[in-house]
C-alpha cells in the first residue's frame, strides 16, 4: 500500500503541468533539463522533467554531427545521472517511481487468465537497448550526420500513451499529420496493454531499455536484497507476489528485480531482507 502511494505520488510529481490542457503546449521551463530515472515521455503535455531514454537517443543521434564540428556533447550528463541512480539503488526506481510500471501493475489486476513469460525473453530488453537506443541512432544517419530516435519513433508505448494520444487529441495541427507511424505505434501500444493484463510487467521485463540499463547494476548497487538460504523453505511466497515473477532463492539480486520489496513482507520465514553495501 505504501509503495502504491509512492508510485502514484511519483507519477503526479513527474506530470503536474495542468496548464497544457488549455494552452495545448508542453512545459517549457528549466526543470526539463533534469532527467528522471523513469520512463516518462517529455512530450507528455503534463510532464515537467526529461525522459532519460529520449534524451540519450538525441545525444547518440547527433553524436557524429557533433563530433564532426569538434564538440563533445555526447550525453555524459544523462549517462552519469542514470549511472549514479543505478549504483545507489539498482532497479528500485522501476518498482517505486515509474508511472509506466504502475500502469502495468494496475492492468495485471484485471481478472483474466494469467500466464508466464519464458524467462529467456528478459534478454530481449538488452537487444532493444543496444539496437534501437544506441546502434541505430549512431549508425543510420542522414547526409548531415544526424540519426533518429528509433526507440521513441517506432516502439515506445509510454510515448504513445503519454504524448502521442494526448497531443493528437489536444492539438489540431498534430492531428492532421498522423499516418502509418502513428497507427503502428498505437497498435503496438494496444498489444502491450493487452499483454499487461495477462502477464506481470511484460514491458519492463522484455523491452524497457531503461530497465536494461539499471539491471546491469543490481548486483553491485549500494542498496541490495539480502537472503538467508538456511531459513528459506522454497515455498514460493516470494514468487507469487513478485511483480516480475522472480524466485528470491534463485537469485536475490536478479537483473529483473525491481526492488519493490514485496518479497520481504511475503516471506514468513524472514529469509529476505535488504541491506546497504557500504554499511557491511
Amino acid at each position, binding site marked *: 500500500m505504501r509503495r502504491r502511494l509512492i508510485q502514484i505520488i511519483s507519477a503526479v510529481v513527474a506530470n503536474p503541468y495542468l496548464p497544457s490542457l488549455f494552452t495545448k503546449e508542453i512545459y517549457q521551463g528549466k526543470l526539463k533539463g533534469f532527467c528522471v530515472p523513469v520512463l516518462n515521455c517529455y512530450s507528455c503535455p503534463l510532464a515537467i522533467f526529461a525522459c532519460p531514454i529520449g534524451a540519450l537517443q538525441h545525444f547518440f543521434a547527433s553524436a557524429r554531427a557533433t563530433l564532426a564540428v569538434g564538440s563533445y556533447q555526447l550525453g555524459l550528463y544523462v549517462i552519469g*545521472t*542514470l*549511472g549514479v541512480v*543505478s549504483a545507489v539503488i539498482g532497479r528500485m526506481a522501476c518498482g517505486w517511481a515509474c508511472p509506466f510500471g504502475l500502469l502495468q501493475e494496475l492492468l495485471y489486476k484485471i481478472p483474466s487468465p494469467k500466464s508466464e513469460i519464458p524467462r529467456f525473453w528478459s534478454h530481449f530488453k538488452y537487444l532493444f537497448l543496444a539496437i534501437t537506443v544506441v546502434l541505430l541512432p549512431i549508425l543510420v544517419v542522414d547526409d548531415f550526420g544526424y540519426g533518429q530516435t528509433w526507440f521513441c*519513433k517506432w516502439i515506445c508505448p509510454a510515448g504513445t500513451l503519454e504524448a502521442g494520444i494526448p497531443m493528437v487529441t489536444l492539438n489540431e495541427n498534430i492531428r492532421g499529420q498522423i499516418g502509418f507511424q502513428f497507427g503502428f505505434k498505437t497498435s503496438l501500444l494496444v498489444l502491450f496493454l493487452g499483454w499487461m493484463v495477462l502477464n506481470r510487467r511484460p514491458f519492463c521485463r522484455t523491452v524497457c531499455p531503461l530497465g536494461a540499463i539499471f539491471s546491469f547494476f543490481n548486483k553491485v548497487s549500494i542498496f541490495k536484497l539480502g537472503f538467508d538460504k538456511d531459513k528459506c523453505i522454497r515455498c514460493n511466497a516470494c514468487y507469487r507476489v513478485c511483480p516480475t515473477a522472480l524466485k528470491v532463492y534463485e537469485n536475490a539480486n536478479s537483473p529483473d528485480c525491481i526492488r519493490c520489496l514485496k518479497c520481504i513482507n511475503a516471506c514468513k520465514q524472514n529469509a529476505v531482507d535488504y541491506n*546497504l553495501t557500504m554499511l557491511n
Partner: protein
Amino acid sequence: MKMKRSLLYHKPKAKIRQVTILLLLLFVALLTIGVLLGEVEIVIQKATMICLSCIGIG
C-alpha cells in the same frame, strides 16, 4: 521497515564494495563533465520541443 542485521547472509565482499565505489565515482565524474560541457541546456532544448518521434508523426 527495520533492517535485520542477522539476516544479511550474503555479506558483500570487499571487492564488490570497491566496484560500487568506483562506479559511483565514475558516474559522478561523467555527470559533472556532462554538466560542464553544457549538456543540461541541450536536454532542455530537446525536451521543451514537442518530440514528433515520440508522438508518432515524425
